[in-house]
C-alpha cells in the first residue's frame, strides 16, 4: 500500500482548469520529484495534498485513508470539516518557497510552535525537541535569533525544522530553493538529502535538476495540468521522450553544466 | 401612508435649503483645500531646512495644530481678529481656520513622501550630472506625488468633514441647515438621514475621484 495515492485529481480556479486529471502514487520512504514549467499546476497539486486547496474531482489517500472529502451513501462528495483537515495536516509537513516563518517569534519558538500549540507538549519538552531539530539542520547556535536576522538559507532550514517538529509521515517541498541566492541553495538541499536518506516520504517540487537526479526515486514531469512523463531519473532525465520535457531540461540544465 | 407623505413634503420643502447649505459646504471645502495645499507647499522647504532657526518655528506650529482641536482654532480667529480691528466674514474665518490646521498635516504628509524616496535616487541623479533643483523637479517630485496621493486624499476627505464645524460660528453650511431644521420640526431622523446622504455622496465622490487620479498618475509614471 502506498503512502500517498492521488487519483484523477481535477481542480479549477473558477473557469480556469489547472489540474486536468493527475494520478500517481508514492510508496513509503520514496522521494518523488515533480518537475515542470510555471503554471503547470505543480504547486496547486501539492497544496491539494495537504488540503490548503479544495478540488472538484478526484481522490487523495494518505497512508490508506481518504482525505479531504467523504462520500455519503448516495455517492456525493462532502467536504470534511476544518478540524478534520487540520488533523490531517499534522501528518503532512509542508515547506514553502517564501519560508513563511513567524516574524514575531524567534527561530526556536517557530520550531516549537507545532509541538507546543498543536501537539500540546509541555514547554520544556517542546523546547528540547526544537533544539534537537535545530541542531539537526545545523542551526543550533541561531536558536534565539529572530527570522529577520537570518539569511534565506537559514530561514528555510528553520522552516524545515519547524515542519519536522510535528513528526509528519510525509513532507512536501514547494520550490523551497527558488527564492534563495545561489550560494545558499546547497545548505538547504543538504538537509533535504539527509531526510531522504533517513527514509522520509517526500514530494519535492523543484527546478534543481541535478538534485532531482540524485535524490529522486521517481520523477514526474507536469505540464498544462497533466503528467506528461513519469519514471526513474535514469529514464526521465537521461532519456526524455516528450519534446516538452526535452525543452524544459535544456533550459534548466544549461545553468548547471558544471555540477 | 400619511406619515410618508408628510415626510416627503417636508423634505421636499427643505431640499432647496439643503442644496444651498451643501453649496456652502463645498465652497468652504474647496477654498480651505486650496489654501491648505498652497500653505503646505510654501512651508515644505522651511520644514525640511537644515537651519534650526527656520525649521523649529514650523515644527512648533505643526505640533500645535496636531495637539489642539480645530474648533478652538476657528474660535480664536473668529473672536480674536475683531479685537485686532479685522472683521472678516464667518465664511473667511472658517476657511482660514480649517486651512491653518490642515496645512500642518499636509506638510507632514509631503515631507514623509519626500523622505521616503531613497537617497539612492539623489545619488543616481547627481551621478549623471543633474543639479539639485532639477533632480527634485524631474526625479523626486513625480515619485513623491505618487506616494503621497493616498494619504493626501484621505486628509482632504477629513477636511471636507471638518467643514461642518464652521456651523459653530454661524456659517449656513449643510450641518447648520440640518441642525436648524431639526430644532424646528419633529421629523429629525429623516432630516439627519438627508444631511448624512449629502455628506456621504460628497465624500464617496471625492474618494472615487482621488482614486482615479491616483491610478492615472501611476499609469503616466
Amino acid at each position: 500500500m502506498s503512502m500517498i495515492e492521488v487519483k484523477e485529481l481535477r481542480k479549477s480556479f473558477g473557469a480556469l482548469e489547472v489540474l486536468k486529471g493527475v494520478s500517481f502514487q508514492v510508496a513509503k520512504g520514496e522521494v518523488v520529484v515533480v518537475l515542470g514549467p510555471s503554471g503547470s499546476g505543480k504547486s496547486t497539486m501539492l497544496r491539494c495534498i495537504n488540503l490548503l486547496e479544495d478540488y472538484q474531482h478526484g481522490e487523495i489517500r494518505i497512508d490508506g485513508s481518504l482525505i479531504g472529502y467523504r462520500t455519503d451513501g448516495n455517492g456525493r462528495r462532502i467536504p470534511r470539516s476544518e478540524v478534520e483537515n487540520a488533523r490531517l495536516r499534522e501528518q503532512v509537513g509542508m515547506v514553502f518557497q517564501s519560508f513563511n516563518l513567524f516574524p514575531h517569534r524567534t527561530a526556536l519558538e517557530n520550531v516549537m510552535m507545532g509541538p507546543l500549540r498543536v501537539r500540546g507538549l509541555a514547554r520544556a519538552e517542546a523546547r528540547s525537541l526544537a533544539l534537537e531539530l535545530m541542531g539537526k539542520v545545523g542551526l543550533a547556535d541561531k536558536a534565539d535569533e529572530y527570522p529577520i536576522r537570518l539569511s534565506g538559507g537559514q530561514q528555510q532550514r528553520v522552516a524545515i525544522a519547524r515542519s519536522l517538529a510535528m513528526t509528519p509521515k510525509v513532507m512536501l517541498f514547494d520550490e523551497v530553493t527558488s527564492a534563495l541566492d545561489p550560494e545558499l541553495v546547497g545548505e538547504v538541499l543538504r538537509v533535504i538529502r539527509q531526510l531522504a536518506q533517513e527514509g522520509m516520504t517526500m514530494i519535492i517540487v523543484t527546478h534543481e535538476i541535478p538534485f532531482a537526479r540524485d535524490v529522486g526515486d521517481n520523477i514526474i514531469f507536469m505540464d498544462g495540468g497533466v503528467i506528461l512523463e513519469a519514471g526513474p531519473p535514469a529514464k526521465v532525465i537521461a532519456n526524455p521522450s516528450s519534446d516538452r520535457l526535452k525543452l524544459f531540461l535544456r533550459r534548466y540544465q544549461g545553468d548547471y553544466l558544471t555540477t | 401612508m400619511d406619515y410618508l407623505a408628510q415626510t416627503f413634503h417636508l423634505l421636499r420643502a427643505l431640499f432647496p435649503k439643503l442644496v444651498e447649505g451643501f453649496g456652502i459646504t463645498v465652497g468652504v471645502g474647496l477654498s480651505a483645500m486650496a489654501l491648505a495645499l498652497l500653505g503646505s507647499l510654501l512651508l515644505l522647504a522651511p520644514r525640511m531646512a537644515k537651519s534650526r532657526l527656520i525649521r523649529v518655528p514650523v515644527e512648533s506650529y505643526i505640533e500645535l495644530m496636531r495637539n489642539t482641536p480645530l474648533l478652538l482654532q476657528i474660535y480664536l480667529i473668529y473672536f480674536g481678529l475683531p479685537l485686532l480691528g479685522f472683521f472678516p466674514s464667518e465664511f473667511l474665518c472658517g476657511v482660514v481656520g480649517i486651512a491653518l490646521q490642515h496645512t500642518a498635516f499636509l506638510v507632514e504628509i509631503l515631507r514623509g513622501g519626500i523622505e521616503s524616496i531613497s537617497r539612492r535616487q539623489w545619488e543616481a541623479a547627481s551621478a549623471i550630472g543633474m543639479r539639485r533643483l532639477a533632480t527634485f523637479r524631474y526625479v523626486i517630485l513625480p515619485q513623491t506625488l505618487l506616494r503621497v496621493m493616498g494619504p493626501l486624499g484621505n486628509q482632504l476627505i477629513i477636511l471636507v468633514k471638518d467643514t461642518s464645524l464652521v456651523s459653530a460660528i454661524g456659517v449656513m453650511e449643510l450641518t447648520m441647515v440640518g441642525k436648524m431644521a431639526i430644532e424646528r420640526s419633529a421629523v429629525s431622523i429623516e432630516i439627519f438621514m438627508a444631511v448624512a446622504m449629502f455628506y456621504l455622496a460628497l465624500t464617496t465622490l471625492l474618494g472615487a475621484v482621488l482614486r482615479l487620479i491616483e491610478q492615472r498618475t501611476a499609469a503616466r509614471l
Partner: protein
Amino acid sequence: MLHTLIANLPYLLKGAAVTVWLSLIVLTFGTLMGTLLGLSAAVGGRPIRVLVTAYIFVLRGIPVLVVMLLGYYAFPTLGLTFGPTLGSILGPIFGLRAGAYAAVAAAQIVYVAAFVAEIVRSAVLSVPAGQIAAAKSLGMRRAGILAHVVLPQATRLAVPPLLNNSLTAIKQTSYISVVGAWELTYAAREVVERTLAAFQIFLGVMAIYFLICYPLSLLARWCEKRLVVMH
C-alpha cells in the same frame, strides 16, 4: 496680562476634567466596540462582513457633528433618552444634565468605533497569507492561528494608527460643544463671550489641550519608530 485667564482658570479646569473624563469613556468603549467589529469584519462570515463594512463606510463618510445631531436631537423625539444608564456615568459627578452627555458620548463612541474597526480589520487582513498557510500546514486550528499567529502581528500593526486615532478622538470631544454639551471648549467660549479676552483664554485653553494631547502624540510616534525595526 494673563489675569483674565488666571481668574477663570478654575472654571476652565473643571471643563478640562469633563473633557478628560469624556475622552476616557469614548476611547474605552469606542476601542472595545471597534475592535470587536473589526475582528468580526476580518474573520467573520459574509453577512457580518457586509454589515460591518457598510457601518464603517457610512460613519467614516459623515462628520461626527452629524452623528451627534442624531444622538442629541433626533433620538429624544423617538423617546430614546439614554438618561438613567449611560448618563449616570457622567451626570452626577459634575451635576450636569445626564441625558445630554449620554447622547453625545454614545454618538462619539459609535463614531470612534467605526474608525477603530477599520484599523483593526485592515491590520488583521494585512498579516501575510503565507503565514496562515504555514500555520495551517502545522495542523493549527483556526483559534490557534488567530491567537498565536494573526493577532500578535496584527496588534503590532494596529497600535500606531490606533494611538493616532485616539489623539483625534480626544480633540473631537470638543465638538460636543457645538450641540450644546458643556466641556472645556464650551467653557472657553462662554468665558470669551463674557470677557472678550479671546487671545488669553483660547490660547490658554489650547495650552491645556496641548498638555493633555502631547504625551499621547509622542507615544504614537515612538511606537511607530519601534515597529519599523521589527519588520
